[in-house]
């Protein structure tokens, strides 16, 4: 199928009102979800997922992608107006966004955040279109040993960057891998930790686990401290962003977008490090570097470009390799599975119309984001006024319905509640939940590819080192592990040195 044929097939799939309505609704839900303090883009995507079950696969996935894109931008609104990032990725936006809001320039900061977000989103989507197909065609040569080493590499990165402690990230990933062993054995069909329950033979339901991990702990945290969310909202002010502002920041926006694309395409890095790196690079290169941290509009532009540049790029490993780039794409992979699709190189062969439909939808999502984001900036005060203590019980009810709807099974609701307590325990002990979920998804793939490799080679370990691709992944895995250990050691040594000085 030629490029034009694929494009036309994709257009035929998404060229209908439902697909665009779903995309627009997704962006709106995402912006609102990201903007509500205490909710997050992750929770918004997780809670929207059950509503996609009744939709066509492309419509449902576009809805979720819209929520993802909208949520990342939406997180910047409370970051600027109430100094509370709606998503972790918006933490860097606070550095200059909130001082601008204090100066009465919140409208200008939010406008720049939106313009930078839309530009970065577009660049990221174009990168996805260019690189995903290329990477997928390369990955068609992968066999079980190559996939095993790739997934191992992804796990090392995820365990290393998903929190302030490498060991807690690793513990989280190991627990996720352990949970993924529940169910029937992949080769022999014998029971593993099923306790004789037929409900557990298929393993724990992925949607129940993810909603339990990401939504229920927020409800429990609310019960622990019901007044923690109360904050003061700043007014938008009279000053708005101008085209001259945008032109002045354009270089930082493009640089931040590129950083986002690069870091986003590596599984596990996520948007927050990208935003901070983009911010620090902008400060290093800016003529106004002295103003950074005091309310510099270029700082807002750079951090927003950094975190939105990731949004399209995280879909590169997802679509091309079937490896989720971050926790939101881990949820989106669940949507693919629910609709009977398996992301990975074969999808570019078997479902090329869906792939190109998604590409078209993603490009359009940047335009939707611009218009819906503009409306959301002005309407934020209404969103901020939604009583959190009514929102939380609504989330609980939504979780119950959504999780039940996956398999029509009350057992899954119980799994969700149990995972909610696990997630809350992890939150209290500062164990990042993202490695847990990603390992839970990758665990069966890792084991399956390992055992397939052993079966095809007659238990010869050397199959795991059989060619340049496996060698490449082993090398980068070792480099990553060494780098993470070194960084952890240095951080510990610095803390010790600071204490001695103090």
């Amino acid at each position, binding site marked *: 199928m030629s490029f034009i044929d694929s494009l036309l097939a994709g257009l035929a799939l998404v060229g209908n009102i439902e697909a665009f309505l779903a995309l627009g609704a997704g962006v709106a839900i995402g912006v609102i979800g990201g903007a509500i303090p205490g909710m997050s883009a992750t929770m918004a995507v997780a809670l929207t997922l059950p509503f996609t079950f*009744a939709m066509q696969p492309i419509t449902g996935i576009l809805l979720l992608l819209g929520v993802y894109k909208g949520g990342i931008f939406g997180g910047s609104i409370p970051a600027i107006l109430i100094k509370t990032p709606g998503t972790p990725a918006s933490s860097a936006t606070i550095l200059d966004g909130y001082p601008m809001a204090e100066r009465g320039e919140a409208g200008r900061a939010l406008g720049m955040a939106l313009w930078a977000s839309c530009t970065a989103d577009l660049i990221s989507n174009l990168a996805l279109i260019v690189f995903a197909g290329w990477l997928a065609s390369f990955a068609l040569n992968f066999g079980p040993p190559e996939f095993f080493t790739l997934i191992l590499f992804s796990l090392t990165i995820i365990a290393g960057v998903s929190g302030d402690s490498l*060991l807690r990230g690793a513990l989280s990933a190991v627990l996720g891998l352990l949970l993924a062993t529940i169910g029937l054995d992949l080769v022999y069909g014998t029971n593993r930790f099923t306790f004789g329950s037929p409900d557990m033979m298929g393993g724990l339901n992925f949607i129940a686990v993810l909603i339990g991990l990401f939504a229920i702990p927020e409800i429990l945290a609310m*019960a622990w401290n019901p007044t923690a969310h109360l904050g003061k909202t700043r007014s938008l002010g009279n000053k708005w962003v101008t085209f001259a502002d945008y032109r002045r920041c354009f270089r930082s926006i493009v640089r931040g977008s590129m950083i986002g694309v690069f870091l986003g395409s590596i599984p596990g890095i996520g948007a927050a490090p990208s935003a901070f790196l983009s911010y620090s690079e902008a400060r290093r290169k800016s003529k106004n570097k002295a103003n950074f941290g005091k309310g510099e509009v270029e700082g807002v532009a750079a951090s927003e470009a950094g975190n939105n540049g990731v949004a399209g790029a995280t879909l590169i490993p997802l679509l091309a390799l079937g490896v989720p780039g971050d926790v939101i794409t881990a949820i989106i992979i669940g949507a693919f599975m629910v609709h009977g699709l398996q992301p990975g190189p074969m999808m570019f062969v078997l479902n090329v119309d869906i792939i190109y439909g998604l590409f078209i939808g993603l490009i359009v999502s940047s335009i939707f984001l611009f218009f819906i984001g503009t409306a959301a900036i002005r309407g934020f005060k209404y969103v901020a006024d939604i009583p959190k203590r009514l929102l939380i019980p609504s989330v609980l*009810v939504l979780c119950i319905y959504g999780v039940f709807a996956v398999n029509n099974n009350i057992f899954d*609701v119980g799994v969700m509640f149990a995972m909610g307590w696990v997630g809350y325990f992890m939150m209290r002990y500062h164990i990042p939940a993202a490695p847990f979920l990603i390992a839970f998804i990758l665990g069966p793939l890792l084991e399956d590819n390992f055992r397939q490799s052993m079966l095809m080679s007659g238990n010869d370990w050397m199959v795991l080192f059989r060619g340049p691709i496996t060698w490449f992944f082993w090398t980068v895995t070792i480099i990553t592990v060494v780098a993470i250990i070194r960084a952890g050691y240095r951080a510990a040594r610095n803390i010790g040195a600071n204490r001695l000085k103090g």
Partner: protein
Amino acid sequence: MTNRSVQLQLGLGACIASLFLIFVAIPGWVASPTNVRNIILSPLFWPYVLAGLTGLTGLGLLAVGWFTEEDGVPLNDAADKPHTAWLRLFGLAAIMVVTMLLLPRIGMVWTSMLAFVATAFTVRTRHPIAAVICAIVIPLVLYAFFAHVAGVAIPQGHFVRLP
């Protein structure tokens, strides 16, 4: 809880979990055919590897915790009144247990209404009337969507059935 105590507690917990997996859980709850010649292909292999990794991570956490100096800075924000905070947490646990018990008996819609009201009052809502209205409307709207649009067989219970 300080950073050091968290590291030590997690490390100890991970080591105990690892031992429990190796000596109790895997031999007891993972079945393996007797004719598997190679341990690598056995259903037991992967759980044992992961149990070992859990233990190693636990030892790492213990070592880091042991060599970290006690800074006395609590890792989590304290609740205003810890006793009532614990009571609210127990309240939510009770709501979840009761929800599981009621779901097959009185149906999802009525259970959700009760769970909504109970949760709203557990988190001390300042809008009790709005909470009651939402408790009635939201489960009904969700029922209408999932039952009539998505075609999900929402549990109806033994008493009052919805169209």
